[in-house]
């Protein structure tokens, strides 16, 4: 096990698109253990993506269980995650390990259907909404080379009621 160092914006590598995981090898499993250790070393953080530590494969972790008022699926290791359906929109404040000392408002889908593999290679499907869905969308963005900075809603627009209303499906 080892703590991995976090890439920090404006590191160009954060813009790289990650490749799908082809095989759940021992190397991947050992990387996942290191990624979890790194993730756990940031209390208050609810997710991490492999490219944030310089590994450009489609692996993310999400755990919002320490925010008990939000419905959640516990600690999730998501391999080759894919959002197959999304609905509604919600505005919330986000920050990122890769963007220190800055937070901003970001619009995300309110509810998502998520498909992924777990560490055993089993196919999983989740229905998520709210905070957990936001965390998953933020982490999957990392796999596509995107940061929440790419999705910021300006302060004044962020105050407009228009954004708070769900978009039609």
């Amino acid at each position, binding site marked *: 096990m080892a703590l991995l160092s976090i890439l920090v914006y404006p590191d160009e590598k954060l813009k790289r698109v990650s490749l799908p995981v082809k095989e759940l090898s021992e190397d991947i499993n050992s990387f996942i253990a290191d990624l979890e250790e790194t993730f756990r070393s*940031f209390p*208050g*953080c*609810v*997710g*991490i*993506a492999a490219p944030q530590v310089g590994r450009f494969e489609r692996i993310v972790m*999400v755990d919002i269980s320490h*925010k008990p008022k939000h419905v959640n699926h516990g600690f999730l290791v998501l391999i080759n995650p894919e959002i197959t359906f999304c609905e509604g929109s919600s505005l*919330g*404040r*986000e*920050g*990122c*390990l890769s963007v220190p*000392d*800055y*937070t901003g408002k970001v619009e995300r889908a309110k509810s998502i259907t998520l498909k992924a593999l777990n560490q055993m290679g089993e196919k999983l499907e989740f229905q998520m909404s709210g*905070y957990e869905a*936001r*965390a998953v969308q*933020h*982490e999957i963005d990392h796999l596509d080379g995107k940061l929440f900075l790419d999705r910021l809603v300006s*302060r*004044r627009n962020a*105050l407009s009621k228009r954004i708070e209303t769900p978009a039609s499906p």
Partner: protein
Amino acid sequence: MENWLMLTLVGKDRPGIVAKISHALFDMQGNLGEASMTRLGGNFTIMLMVCIPESQTAVQNKLQQICDELGLFFHLDAIEAGLHRHIEPDVRISVHGADQAGIVARATDVLNKAGLNILNLESDVGGSSESPVYVMHIEGVAGKGFDAVDKALQALARENDVTASMTPIDTMVG
């Protein structure tokens, strides 16, 4: 020791104000920090932190020429400041209703007593000239907890016939 100045500027809005002012500061090796620039009632306003090696008098003289040309008023203050001093808000407050004299004073007074530290406030008057509508949004830190803020807003709404609500901000860090 960094030499930070706060530039306060206001004048009739026209295109090019931001470009001309920021270019002048850049020409003096000024490094801009955090800024708030917005149009208020047909005027353009700037509050801007700038870290600059030139003396305050030199900056004053340079800006005076540009502001005279553009018809702007400005003011410079030497400030003790720095970057990376953000405070995260934990609550967002919204107040709206028919415009009425004193609503900002009453709202901010009850919120102050409820322990709120205001980090950002934006208010607007919309609607029509005959029936203006007042809208205010605040982000801040609830120093005495959300319940105190919520109770204060309920009382404010009741006593002033406005809609007032709060939402906790739970910043998602991923």
